[in-house]
């Protein structure tokens, strides 16, 4: 079953490269071929991921002995959910791209870039070696840049270029800091293996310095306030499929990196920095929530809500308790599913409306497009943390975790943070209902509701994608155990290591 370890990331990467290269050959690849190839590659990758998740094979070989780099592929409870979500979202993104293919380049390039991003994401969650982690982390940048810069919003080329540029420069800055951190750790520990790094801790002072570097580097990707500026821009401009990938895959790579590279190997450094990072996280929650209350662009609003939600994830990670870690890992996955759903719906709406300005009066979505409106309601209800949907458990438990932080963290300060986080959840309700009031209820003035317009509603692939994501949102909310049980063993191990 080791083959599955290779198949999961390589199927999309190879197919993606083939599409991009094939596009440059004499005859460009047709849209249909590109779609079929991508779909087959992604299904193969999903299948391989399921096999990996079920069988948990391990591959550990020497790769580049000069820097102690190994080809070490394996999964544990923390990476399995992320792996499965990435592969599943990959399939959905390909399906959605068939439905909504933006102008700006050939279909094969578009599909190819999508596949490369997904493949890079899958590889990130599979590798157990810090250097290869860094490589996989960086693979996604260029295709994502192409997606934003070439296939983004057609209305404003300058804004598109600027968003793509900000995205790349910002994340490259983060990656550079991360690389410095990784190399420092590796040379101190004499190994680049993630487990080996955790087994050879450094002195507390050094840990703090390295953790600060890594947290800034990864915090850009997560994103953590005040390093979030690239996110709303990139999301607003990116095509729908790109937005889904950004939210469901790229952001998750950031939090996964925090767990693997910071929380596990640098417990003392994290403990020292936790109050500061936690404060940034909670400022992010409040900040994002407040901006969402007045934001006019619907897509930007969803992007801002991501900043707030990732704040809960960071708060959980920084609490240093089992409950906080479990909450963070849950909220991480939940955010991936919810924001993928929201971007699918909101992208569809933007496509239909021509823009996504909330100040433009439109007919109420609940009457015009019942299917899309149901997905929108589920998405925003989940976004505000409604129980029975995915967003609830992660956020509530993150607050629980922050209430009694582990180690020598300042309890009083974390309690203040927990209180502000719970206020942030109220802001989430405020902006979610604001959107529902404007879009779902509409500005009608009395009279009977208008007839539905089946032609404008979600159909075919779009409906499939939104209903699968809606169903996933509900399932995670109703049966949180499926996810919490998966992560529980790995979290207990992690706590046993860092709780020394």
């Amino acid at each position, binding site marked *: 079953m080791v083959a599955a370890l290779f198949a999961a990331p390589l199927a999309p990467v190879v197919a993606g490269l083939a599409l991009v290269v094939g596009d440059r050959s004499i005859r460009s690849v047709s849209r249909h071929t590109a779609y079929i190839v991508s779909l087959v590659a992604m299904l193969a990758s999903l299948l391989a991921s399921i096999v990996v998740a079920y069988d948990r094979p391990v591959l550990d070989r020497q790769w580049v002995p000069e820097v102690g780099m190994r080809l070490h592929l394996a999964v544990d409870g923390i990476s399995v959910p992320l792996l499965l979500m990435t592969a599943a979202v990959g399939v959905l993104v390909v399906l959605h791209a068939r439905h909504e293919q933006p102008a700006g380049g050939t279909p094969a390039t578009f599909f190819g870039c999508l596949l490369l991003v997904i493949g890079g994401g899958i590889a990130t969650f599979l590798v157990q070696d810090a250097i290869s982690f860094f490589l996989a982390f960086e693979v996604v940048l260029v295709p994502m840049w192409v997606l934003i810069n070439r296939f983004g919003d057609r209305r404003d080329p300058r804004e598109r270029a600027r968003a793509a540029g900000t995205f790349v420069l910002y994340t490259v800055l983060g990656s550079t800091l991360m690389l410095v951190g990784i190399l420092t750790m590796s040379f101190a520990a004499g190994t680049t293996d993630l487990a080996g790094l955790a087994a050879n801790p450094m002195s507390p002072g050094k840990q703090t310095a390295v953790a600060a570097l890594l947290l800034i580097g990864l915090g850009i990707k997560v994103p953590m306030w005040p390093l979030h500026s690239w996110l709303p821009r990139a999301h607003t401009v990116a095509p729908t499929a790109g937005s889904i990938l950004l939210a469901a895959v790229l952001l998750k790579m950031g939090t996964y990196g925090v767990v693997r590279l910071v929380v596990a190997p640098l417990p003392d450094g994290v403990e020292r920095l936790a109050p500061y990072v936690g404060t940034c996280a909670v400022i992010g929650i409040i900040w994002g929530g407040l901006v969402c209350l007045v*934001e006019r662009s619907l897509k930007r609003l969803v992007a801002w809500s991501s900043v707030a939600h990732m704040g809960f994830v960071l708060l959980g990670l920084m609490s240093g308790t089992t*409950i906080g870690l479990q909450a963070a890992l849950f909220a991480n996955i939940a955010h991936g599913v919810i924001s993928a759903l929201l971007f699918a719906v909101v992208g569809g709406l933007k496509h239909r409306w021509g823009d996504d300005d909330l100040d433009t009066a439109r007919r109420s979505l609940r009457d015009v497009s019942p299917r899309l409106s149901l997905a929108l309601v589920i998405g925003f209800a989940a976004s505000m943390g409604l129980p*029975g949907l995915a967003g609830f458990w992660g956020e*509530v438990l993150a607050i*629980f975790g922050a*209430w009694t932080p582990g180690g020598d963290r300042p309890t009083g300060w974390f309690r203040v943070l927990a209180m502000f986080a719970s206020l942030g959840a109220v802001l989430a309700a*405020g902006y979610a209902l604001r959107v529902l009031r404007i879009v779902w209820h509409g500005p009608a*003035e009395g009279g009977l509701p208008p007839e539905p317009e089946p032609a404008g509603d979600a159909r075919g692939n779009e409906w499939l994608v939104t209903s699968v994501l809606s169903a996933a949102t509900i399932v995670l909310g109703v049966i949180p155990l499926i996810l*919490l049980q998966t992560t529980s063993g790995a979290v207990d191990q992690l706590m046993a290591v860092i709780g020394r």
Partner: protein
Amino acid sequence: MLTDGRFDTSTLALDFPLQPSHLAVVLQVAIPVLILLVTRRSSHAFAIAGLFSFLGLAAAVALLVQQTRGGAVISPDSIGELPLGPGIDVPLHLQVDRLSVLVAVAVGLVSWAVQLFTRWYLYSDPRYRQFASAVGLFTAAMELVVLSGDVLLILVGWELMGWCSYLLIGHESERPKARRAAYKAFIVTRIADAPLVIGLAILSLGAHSTGIDAILRHWSAAADAHGTALTAALLCLICAVAGKSAQVPFQDWLPDAMEGPTPASALIHAATMVAAGTVVLGKLVTLLELSDTARVVLALVASISMVGAGVLAFLQHDLKRLLAWSTVSQVGLMLLGLAVVSADQTADLGIAHLLSHAMFKALLFLMIGWLSVVVSGTTVERLSGALSKHPEARRMVGIGLLALAGVPPLVGFVSKDLIVDEAARRGIDGDFTARIAFAALICVVLLTAAYTMRMWLILIHRTGSQRVQVREWVEDSYDVQDVGIVEMLTDLPQVDIHGRPTDRTAPIELPDDLELADQQPGGGARFGLQLLALLSVVGGLLVLSPMLDVDWKHPNVWLIGASLLLMGAVGLLVRLMSVGTVYGDAAARVPLFVRASASRGFAVDSLYVAFGRSIVALAQAVSRLDDVLDRGVQRLPALSATVVRRADRLHTHRPTSGLVAVSVGLVAVGLMGVILW
């Protein structure tokens, strides 16, 4: 399947993973799931809603029977224990006890009656399916709160109820007022809920478990050592309860929630959301006894809300809003029932009043819904004299109002008198909280008598009915004109979209609303109403059963007599005030500006709006600040580009400049070498 001793016929004990307590919740959840997945037509949706809400009620009744015979499983599992590490157990189990079972049956009953009534009330509504689904989910959430034995499950049901109230109140989202009311209801209750998570975190992290038994056990033992933490947690809970139960200072969302269809109001007020606070505090009443601060705060909040709402109810111009304020007042009464009990007692007093209130308030709301369809409105002018045409409606409204006023032997009297008795008894014993409660209770007994009397006098007003008749003639004449136009249209040849005449001369279908005005609810809906009326009359007998542990054998006869006399006097006074007014409205004697202000709830709404504005102003400031941050970030690449360009220029435009730079560097290095050497 149920053989091999898995089902014990004497105790009805069932040895099976799925218990009646699960079914009471799951069958209600099945309503929205099935309606949204399977049905496309209102009639099919009603078949599902009616059937499953009846089955849900049946499950609750089965649970009641099990409980009385001792066969119920005390703490059945729900979705499994969450693995959250050694610091905390999250068993997520349900809890079946006397009180929760009684409330579960009441909730199921009211919900069933509401589902039956809704089919008639929203017969021609294109969104009937969504409404019935939301009612199902709402009921499920309340049943979950009632039957939960875990604070996280309480939180789940609690928040879901807020959401369902949003859906129901905003049902007619074509109307801006309904949209605003829905938004307001959710946001106000959600703001009040913010401390709830914190309160629950304090309680459960202290007890290392989210199970209610474990929390009660831990905190009962630790109350002395950690009194402040307990008080803080309880105050957080009381804040959330005040939000959901519409107590001061969150009271203003409830009257606005009258923008929802009447069945929604019946559900929200009678059995679910508003009463949930009593249920939750009832589960934790043992802890309430341990913290005097929390008790006093609860008693003050409840007393102020109760008396204020009573005054407002008397002054309302819209009788549906009158009922809404009366709910605020009655919920205050329930909460006082929890605040006055002594340490060894359980929450029976509050729960008993919850049950009786559920019956008569559901009845009253559904009746107002019926009447409002008949006279198409709920204001005093519209409803004045509305009862004179419908004797059956008259009887049921009469029963509801008598129960609300607390006239013996109706159910409202029994449960209210028990609370007054207890408050008097403990007040005499020197308990400060009970004294506050007693004073407020006396005021409320009188105020309730006043506003119920006023409502009754308006509804049976004679001359008012004549006025209504005259207005109906006028409106009929409009209808005749309408019909004339319609007939004219049907007589003309029909054309299709291309303008060609079609053969069919099908008559234009009139919307059902036009015929609805003379209808009365169908058999099912009327049956539900009669059931509620019957229970409002004889429900008081419940205190005799062992299900409720209350002291009914030692009534304070003097107190009862005195309060009845006073109520009679107030009733007489209201009657006198109503004489000679146009609509039989006693409140017409009150100055207009007072009434106008009261109809707006003394303009508390403007405070809410001001609060909202300040948050939005803060949000705008933050948004501007973020723009500044963003501009700074945008300048970074430009800055680096400038630096690069400068360096570039240094390098290419003047070939010698690079040489100069290198030589300067060499000189510097040389100097440093000389100095350091």
